[in-house]
Structure formats: structure tokens, C-alpha cells
């Protein structure tokens, strides 16, 4: 019976010692002492042959039970110690999460590119193809073909930069692209959106600059009416301003369209209540539009008796100004990083 008592003593002593081991090193020492090759319980196994035969099974079972108990206790303790060590380690690694992060350099698009892309995406999704034409234009393309003959009063509407080369000028609008596109596609129908840089001989101020981008729409086909113009522009306004704002078409005059209209949209800032952006009117003028004038259709190579069309033009710069409450249009091309980095 001595061996059984010895086993019980080993178990108790082992567990007591284990309770005192609280780090990896003392745990390892305990493991070697109580579960290693020379541990007391192992010695019980090796002495088993010397025990009386009838007692051997009982001693063997007990020794196994003690060994398993010690092993289980060891595993449990090991886990606990590791967990505690990890916790301590984690606590030690705690950061001040309010310190600033390390930022990579963020590339950015110019705000005008962002707005232009948005506009083009909307119109291309409606089936308008992007068509580009040059900045340097001839008088004919910029004016005459657009039903603005020399000395016509309508020429007053565009203050123009002329070049020293006779007949050449900086386009005052993207409309010459209408003629280029029509002449390329006629007599097939055409549905294009024309983006580009335009120039006006004007004293630059907060609301107008000598250079600005414009986007123009042109649709020429067999069955294109003022109703299509309204529908297209209403869809555009809904998408670019992201909510259903009221719009209205107000009669206006452009030599290359008839009827001509200005499209006003309910002020995006005050929703029509009146504010400084809309100067109290509740409306913002966002684009000019109209049905393509028969003379322009003819210059483009179409028979006005068979074809009709509409055109519209707007300034992405102006739309960006409205959406971001930009005070001075000249900030667009001054390119101060403190301005650019806000977009």
C-alpha cells in the first residue's frame, strides 16, 4: 500500500508545486521535475516490477491516473501562464491611437476633371459620344457656320481673342465642334457631347475668367424635338445634382438654336428659398440650349426639311462652383495646392 500512498503524495506535492510556478521557466522546471524521465511518478512505473503481482494493476492504474492528472494540471497552468504573458505583452504594446497616422501621398484629380468626367459619364450613358475639336478655330467655324455672319449684332455676345494670323481665333465656345461633328457624320444622325477649353476676351473676375471649359451636347436625327431636349436635360439635372430639383426653361437667344432657352435649376444651396448664391431668385442658370437652327443644320451638311436637332451647352467650372460653394472661378486655374487638395 506504500506505493499508493506515495502516488497520492506525489500528486499532492506536484499540484502544490505547480501552483507556485507562474512563469514559463519555473513551469518548465516543474515539467522536468514532475513529468520528466526521472520524475517520482515515472519512478513508480519503473518500480512496478518489484511490487507484488496482485497489486501491480492497481498501482499501475493509480500511477497512470496521477500522471494524467499532473499532465492535465500542467497543460491548464501552461495555458494560463501563456495567456497571462500574452496579456501582459499586449498591455505593454498599447499605443496612443490618437497620434496621427502615416499617410501615403494621395494623388488627386483637378476638380474640373472630376466634374467633367461626371458630366461626360451621364451623357455617354445616354448614348452621346465624346467628340473633341481644336482650341484654335477659324472665324467661319466659330461664328459664320453657326449663323453668326460678320458684323451680326449677335457677335456682341462673344468677346473674342483673335490671333495675329488673319481669320484665326481662340474658340469662344465649344459650338464649332458641332459643325466639325456634323460634317464628319452627315448624312447619318449624330449624337455627341463636346468638351473643351474656351476663351473670352473679358476682364477676369470672381464669376468669369478668360479661359473656361465648356461641355456641349448635339443631337441631330429624324425625330428630335424640343420635348427630347427637355427630357434629356431634366435627366441630366436629376443625375448631376443627385436629387429631384425643379428646373425651368426660359426663352433666350443664341444664333445657332431656335427656339433657344436658358435652363435654370432650383438653387442647390437654398432649394429655391433665396440665398446669396442665387442672389435671392431661388434659381441658378446652368445652361443654354435650343433646337438647332436650320442654317446651322445646312452648314453641317443636313437637310433641315428632313433633320431636326437640339444642342445645349454648360460650364463644368460653374457647376463645380455651385456644388462646392467656390467663391472665385479663378481659383480653378491658379492651382493653389491649398485649394486643389480639398477635392
Amino acid at each position: 500500500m506504500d506505493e499508493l500512498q506515495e502516488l497520492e503524495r506525489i500528486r499532492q506535492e506536484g499540484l502544490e508545486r505547480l501552483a507556485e510556478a507562474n512563469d514559463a521557466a519555473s513551469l518548465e522546471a516543474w515539467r522536468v521535475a514532475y513529468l520528466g524521465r526521472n520524475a517520482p511518478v515515472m519512478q513508480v512505473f519503473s518500480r512496478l516490477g518489484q511490487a507484488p503481482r496482485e497489486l501491480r494493476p492497481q498501482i499501475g492504474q493509480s500511477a497512470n491516473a496521477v500522471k494524467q492528472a499532473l499532465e492535465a494540471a500542467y497543460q491548464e497552468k501552461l495555458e494560463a501562464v501563456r495567456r497571462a504573458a500574452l496579456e501582459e505583452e499586449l498591455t505593454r504594446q498599447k499605443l496612443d491611437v490618437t497620434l496621427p497616422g502615416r499617410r501615403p501621398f494621395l494623388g488627386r484629380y483637378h476638380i474640373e476633371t472630376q466634374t467633367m468626367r461626371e458630366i461626360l459619364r451621364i451623357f455617354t450613358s445616354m448614348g452621346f459620344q465624346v467628340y473633341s475639336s481644336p482650341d484654335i478655330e477659324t472665324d467661319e467655324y466659330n461664328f459664320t457656320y453657326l449663323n453668326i455672319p460678320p458684323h451680326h449684332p449677335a457677335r456682341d455676345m462673344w468677346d473674342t481673342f483673335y490671333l495675329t494670323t488673319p481669320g484665326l481665333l481662340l474658340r469662344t465656345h465649344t459650338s464649332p465642334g458641332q459643325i466639325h461633328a456634323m460634317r464628319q457624320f452627315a448624312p447619318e444622325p449624330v449624337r455627341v457631347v463636346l468638351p473643351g477649353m474656351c476663351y473670352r476676351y473679358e476682364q477676369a473676375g470672381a464669376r468669369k475668367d478668360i479661359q473656361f471649359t465648356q461641355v456641349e451636347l448635339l443631337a441631330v436625327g429624324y425625330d428630335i424635338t424640343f420635348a427630347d431636349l427637355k427630357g434629356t436635360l431634366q435627366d441630366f439635372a436629376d443625375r448631376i445634382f443627385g436629387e429631384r430639383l425643379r428646373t425651368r426653361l426660359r426663352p433666350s437667344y443664341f444664333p445657332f438654336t431656335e427656339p433657344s432657352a436658358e435652363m435654370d435649376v432650383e438653387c442647390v444651396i437654398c432649394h429655391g428659398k433665396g440665398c446669396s448664391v442665387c442672389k435671392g431668385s431661388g434659381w441658378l442658370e446652368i445652361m443654354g440650349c435650343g433646337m438647332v437652327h436650320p442654317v446651322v443644320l445646312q452648314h453641317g451638311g443636313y437637310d433641315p426639311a428632313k433633320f431636326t436637332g437640339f444642342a445645349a451647352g454648360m460650364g463644368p467650372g460653374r457647376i463645380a462652383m455651385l456644388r462646392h460653394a467656390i467663391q472665385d472661378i479663378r481659383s480653378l486655374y491658379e492651382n493653389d495646392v491649398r485649394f486643389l487638395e480639398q477635392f
Partner: protein
Amino acid sequence: MKVVLSWLKEFVDIDLNLEELARTLTMAGLEVEEIQLVGLPMPPAERHEFHYSGLTWEPDKIVVARIDEVMPHPNADRLVLCRLHDGQQEHIVLTGAPNLFEYKGKGPLPQPLKVAYAKEGARIYDGHQPGQVLTTLKRAKIRGVESYSMVCSEKELGISEEHEGIIILDPDAPTGMPLVEYMGDAVLDVSILPSMARCASILGVAREVAALTGKPLRLPRATLPATGESILGKASIQITEPEYNPRFVLGLIRNVRIQPSPYRVQLRLRLAGMRPINNIVDATNYVMLEIGEPLHAFDYQALVRRAQGNPPTIITRRARPGETLTTLDGVERKLDDFTVLVCDTAGALSIAGVMGGAETEVTEQTTDVLLEGASWNFINIRKTVAAQKLNSEAAYRFSRGVHPALAPEGVKLGLERMALWSGGEIAADLIDAYPVPHKDPQVDLTAAEIRRALGIPLSLDEAENLLSRLGFTCQIEGDVLHVQTPPHRLDIGEGLVGKADLIEEIARLYGFDRIPARRLADPLPSLQEDPNLAPTDKVRDALVRLGLQEVITYRMTTPEREHRLYLDDAPERNAPYLTLANPISLDRSVMRRSLLASVMEIAERNTRLRERLALFEIGPVFLPVEGQPRPDEDWRVALVLTGTRQPPAWDRKEATPMDFYDFKGILEGLLEALHIPDVTFRAAQTSTFHPGKCAEALSGDRVLGVFGELHPKVKEHFDFGPAPVLAGDFSLKALLESMPVAYEVGAVPAFPPVLEDLAVVVDESIPAARVEEVLRQGGGKLLTAVRLFDIYRGEQIGAGKKSLAYRLTYQALDRTLTDKDATSIRQRIIRRLEQELGAKIRG
């Protein structure tokens, strides 16, 4: 154009309040920019869409009063006391108005003066302060006399800037009547579109109001209430070029008395923005504002004198070479051969339709007036206005087109007004030269045509109704509407253009808001998008992904600004520019030739604002080409980098500046993102970059662009800090042409690679690219990656040598490579390096 409300109401009844009227006009194409209140109250509205200015006159505080006597002030010479009755009681009112001095001390006035009287507590503008400063009348003692009210000047009531004298109303003004009731008014500032020149008159606007509201239009009755002998035989007209002067009408009035016009007339002229002169000149201006026909009054006796006592002959002709004329403004003008003149037998009298001459103008002494009403070719007037840099109310209208039918109407109305205000006798008859009568277009329209343009099924009856409201005469015949243009419009064309013109008028009156919106139903045309758009966006996207900020710059510059980008003796400084004929400022005189110069300016401007700048722009430059009408618009991609390599952070103390290789790394990233094949770099020399830190990038044989560190001499031209400035200028066309439409990708290897390091010692003069080329040739297909990870120079390897350490990756797609395979590749590589470059392998 300033539209005076009371004047407008003479021609059409208006039920709308000011706000509604302004909205109605605006929505019909007559945009109201501002409303000036002249006494009237703000219209009631939940919210005012329009901008209002001006003053409201309180009915109980500002009234018509009667001055019965003007008495001297006991203590001041420059002040007078008025005995005044405001309809309820008598007051003694103090004033310094000089226009009352002539009545001072004359005892009770036989004809009392009617004035605008402001009582205690009235809110008016301060007459002695510049601009419009509101003030409230308070009781005060001025030089010992109590004052609590005043007689007002125009300035104090917000009518005009006039504050020298007080307003003296017409004698029939009813004493005691609130002033606002007597003459309260409003002025709508209407912007007139070029297509609506017919509306540059009160009648023109009234015609629109009538059409829009359905109220009848009261046309002015143009009779000739003649009381004198006929004009026939007293003058004659010779038109030499009817194309420029289609019509010329003369009328005559004799025995006029030149004096100021009635106050109500002066008031209207002032509110419409014109200065009253005298009753004759005012009559011409009044008629011009009223119906749109500019008139010119000649002193008839002056003309007779010039014709040596004979009846004058008025001749219209073009100016002769070298001819000059001194106009009313005192300027002697050199005339162009297209300038049309009104002359008599003695010479030029006026520039037709623009401005009169001094000699025959109406003066205080004038007794007989010859009145001209004419019509002129509007393009010719426009050219004259532009050439002479001379404008006038008459030229404004004539240069936009005045219908010839208005000429006799204007002359008749003018004579009538002159007779009314100056008491003359109108001569019977008019002389009317009308060599080429104007033909008002007749246009045929069908319902199908209306529907085709507007998308609405409008019946011809409805179309007729809309057009006749505007004065068109319509007749329906079967499915055709015959439309006759009324004789006051020049904006309706013939044929197809005429149809479009009429359809616009139908749509405008029908209301754009009533036309339904529809999604495009016409079949979609074939798609042929600008082929450069998507690839250009890829370039832009790649640069933004690489951390660069896009800029968009002005495309106008000066040669001097661009030349900063080049060394002093660079050939680029002689390149021709596309030059503006009319630059708006000295710093924007040409179209740029260098996109990099534009971006460099932006970098310079921002250099002190950030530790690091990485900017790019994609845009055109403008290159004149000999013998080619238009310049080349060559699209470029320009990049500028300067400043620290890494973003600043609180635990990063060192800030290394970017150098050549940072730029090149970004460029390599760009070319990789664009999948541009066969990229190589070679040293280059330019007028911009450091001779030893400059390279060209190529794809195959195609040069993509050049980049490098700014030459120190070039950098001196700019205001940059000490950090190197890296820049590059690339051809967008070359980039786009090098971008493959499709490209192949390799399979991900299933077997492990063998990695090996190799240090190659070569002469300093051998470029790294050459070493890598030989490495790859030696390694063959199994050498899948070569990465340079160190460069060493030092005594151990000898002077003039460098050691390049590479990490090589050997990889087969079909098997795991053995040590034997690796050794054999390595030996091939080494052999090749030794043979071709005389290289030695270290370690």
C-alpha cells in the same frame, strides 16, 4: 432697357403686381434684372425672386403741396421760407433750393408752385450725402427757425442724383394727394436679347405684355394734327444708296418756343435713363423710348442758311475718301467709306443713325424744326459704331434693326409732342422717300412642322391664336397656316428660317413649361467616340494612382515666361509663337508652346506651401506650322516633382529630398501601368536639364519624352528652395501609340523559384541597363527576374570600378529547378558578363 411702369400702362392694362409682371416678362425672354421702386411699395409676395432697389413713399408723409409764397429767411441769405399748404394745413418750410430764389420776396404767388412735400417722420434719402443714405425727418432749429419737414429734390425721393433744386411739379398736380398716388412709379431694367430688338421701346414691351396676358394693346394714334402750311416744296430728300438708307421721312414744325418740357416728361426721361434737354430734343427722345424710332431734329433755319436761303435738300450718301465730321460731342471724326452721312448741299450734317453734327442742332434760338425719321441698314450702323467707338441710344436701336414702317409714325408722334410742349404749328404733310419698300415676309406653316420641332400636337387654330396675339396676320387654308409678319418686326426670315422663327414664337407664347419632357426616341447613331479619350484617361488615372496632383493651367502665356525653362542661349528661345492680336493683359500674350513651363510655374508658386510637390497636367501646346493655316495642337503630359521623398510624420526625423531616381520610378510606374512594351532609357542633353541627370524614355524606337533634374542655371530662373526639381515632358501621342490594345499575361508558376545573388564588378562607364541586358541574355528564359539591390564602390574593387549586386530569380514553369540547373544558368551568365563586359564576379 429701362421700362417705366406708368408709361407701359398707357399701352396695356396690367393686373399683375410688379413681381408677377417681372416673372411673366422673364419667362417670355425679357429678363428683368432689377426693379427700381420710385415711390411704389414692394409688391406683396411670399418671396421676392427679383432684386428691388429704390424708395417707397409713405402716402401719409409725402404728399403734393402748394407753395403760396417764398419769403426771405431772417438770418440767412442762402435759405428761404416757404408758405406751403399740404392740403390739410399751412406750414412754414425752410429750404435752400436755388430754383426758388427767383420767387423770393415777391409776395403771394399768382400761380402757386406745386412741390413734393415730406412731413415730419418721413423716410427719404439724405440729399447732402453721396449715394443713397436713408434718413428720417426730425424736428430741428436751423438758424433760429424751427424746421420739421421739407420740400424734396429728386435725389431725396430716389428718382435721380439731382439735388441742386427741388422738384417743381406740373401746375395741375392736386394739392394734398399722396405723392405715390400722383406719380409713384417703378422701373424694370429689362435685358433685351439681340433677337428681340423690337422690344427696345415701351410699346415693344407693351406688345409682349398684351400678347402674354391677353389684354388688348392700345396703339398710339399717329395722326398729323397739322395747323400750318404743307412741308412740300420747303425741303427735299435725295437717297443715293437705298441699300444703306431704305427710307427717309421729314416733317416740319414752325414757331416753336424752346423751353423745358413738362415735369412729368422730364421725369419719364430720367427714369428711362436719359437727360432732359429741352422740349424739342426731349420730344425726339420721348418718341424713341416710346415706339423705338430714333428721330433727329434739325434747326430748319440753319439748313436754309446753309442753302443760301433756298429750301434745303437732304442728301444721304457714303463718306468720301478722307472726309471728316465734327460730331455733337466735339470730336472731329475721320470717316470710313462705309460710313453713311446725312448731308445737305453744303456738306455733312450728321453720321446717319449715330450722332448729329453741331452746326444744325436745335438751340435756344431755334424757331422752326425739321424732323428726321429714317431707317438704316443695321449692319452698316454696327460697323460705324465699332469703327468710331461711338454709341448712342439711337445707334443702339439702329444697329439692332428698326423697321422702316416706324419712320413716318415716329415723325408724326414727334411733331405732335413738340406742338404739345412747345406750342408750334405743324406743317401739313410729310416728305417720305422710300425707294425700296420693305417686304414683310409671309411664311407658311403646317401642324406637322410645329410638331416636328416642338413635339406637341398643336392645331393650326391654336397656332393662329398665339401668333395673332403678337400681331401676326394669319389665314388658315387647308392644312397650311399663312402667316404675315407685322410691320414692326425684322427678326422673321423667309422659308425654312421663317418657319423656325415662327415656331419659336409659338413655343415662347405657348410656354416652354407646357411642352412635355420625353426621353430621346430617335434611333441611336453608330458609336464613334473620340479614340483618344479613354487612353488619355488611363494616363491620368495612372498618374493619380502614383500620388500626383493634377493641375489645369492657363493656355495663354508670354514667351518670356516660357523662356525661363531654358538656358540663356537655348535654341528654344527663338521658336515662333501663336500670338494674340488683342491680348487682354501683358502677361497673357501668346499661346503656350510648353506645357512643362505652365506646370513649373504652378510648382514654383506652391513651393513654400508644401514639403513635397508632385504635379502633372495633360494638355495641348500650340505650335505654328509654316504653310499650314491652323497650328498643331500637340497634347503633352508634363510632370514636376520636388521636395521630400516621404510624407512628413511625427516619428520620421529625416527628410530626404527626391532625386532623379524618384522621378524615374514614378515614370516606370506610369509606363508599367500603361503596359507600354520595350521600355528603355538613355542619357540625353537638353536646354532644360542637368547634362548628367537627364534621360529620354523610349518604347522600342519611339521616344516618349525627356525628363531629368533641372539644370542649376535653369533652376536659378525660378524661385525654388534647395531641393532638386525633377521634371519631365512627354508626348501624349507617343504614349497612346505605344499603349497596346491587348497584352498577354503569364501563368502563375506552380514550382518554386531558385533565388541567387550575384555581384558584378564592371567599369564605371558601363550603364546598369547594359549589365542587366547581358544578364538577361545569359540567363535566357529561365531567368525570370533581375533586381539590383546594391551598388558598391571602393578600394576593394579598384578605382574606376563599381560593383552591382543583383538578386536573380530562376524559374521554370514545368518543373522544380535543381542545383545543377541553377549552376549551369549562373555559369552561362558569368561567362557572358566576362566576355561582353569584362566583368568580374565578386565573392
